[in-house]
């Protein structure tokens, strides 16, 4: 009789535990605000390169004329940092935002030194394209994960 009661207890404990463990979470959920902020940043960076490519070789390409772009990018990235820091299990996206900030700061340093040729822009733009494609790929996978739940 005691064994029978113990078995019933075990079954209830198993059901209770399993009900709370039927899905495991290893990474943050998809966040619409983060995704939109990254897309907005990608658009601004694209505009920067299009404009710069047209203006290289003229005084219009001087760093002083692009300070607004860098200021806006830094504000957007700081907002994105605050957002991503507030989400649990989001360390991968937090690290990505940090590296994206480094990329903007390094691009600013290069622009301060001045661009003498359009050729100089190509690897910088390539880097941003690869970085944004990687981020979009991750965001799409996170979004697909939400749909599957």
């Amino acid at each position: 009789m005691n064994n029978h009661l113990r078995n019933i207890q075990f079954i209830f404990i198993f059901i209770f535990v399993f009900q709370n463990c039927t899905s495991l979470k290893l990474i943050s959920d998809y966040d619409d605000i983060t995704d939109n902020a990254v897309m907005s940043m990608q658009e601004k960076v694209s505009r920067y390169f299009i404009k710069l490519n047209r203006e290289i070789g003229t005084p219009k390409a001087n760093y002083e004329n692009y300070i607004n772009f860098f200021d806006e990018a830094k504000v957007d990235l700081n907002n994105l940092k605050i957002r991503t820091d507030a989400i649990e299990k989001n360390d991968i996206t937090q690290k990505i935002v940090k590296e994206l900030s480094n990329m903007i700061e390094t691009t600013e340093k290069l622009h301060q030194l001045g661009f003498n040729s359009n050729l100089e822009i190509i690897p910088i733009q390539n880097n941003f394209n690869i970085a944004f494609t990687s981020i979009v790929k991750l965001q799409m996978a996170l979004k697909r994960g939400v749909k599957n739940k």
Partner: protein
Amino acid sequence: MAVFDIQKVGKDMITASKTSLGDKFTEAKPFAELSFKQLAQNLALITELRITNVIDDQKAKLHLDLYKSTVKINLLAIEGLGIIAVEEAINSALAVVKDSVNSTIGFAII
């Protein structure tokens, strides 16, 4: 003018990532292969700009800093894709157990 073997650099990057990311790499492999090829091409381009004196040492260093951040973002995304795949696999397995228990008992107890 490529100053080094782009394909070899791309393959070396894949090998290094496989070692550090382990099983998590498999799911992201097609994306990783494509992006590593692009990264290797970009590294070749930076080297070429320096050799042909389009950029000086100071700018070359900044270009490489930018490149390193890009590689980090790419690897972080690949790691994330792997984690999502592992999470999906575990949750699918848990769902099978749940279905199995419920069908054995005859109603949705879990």
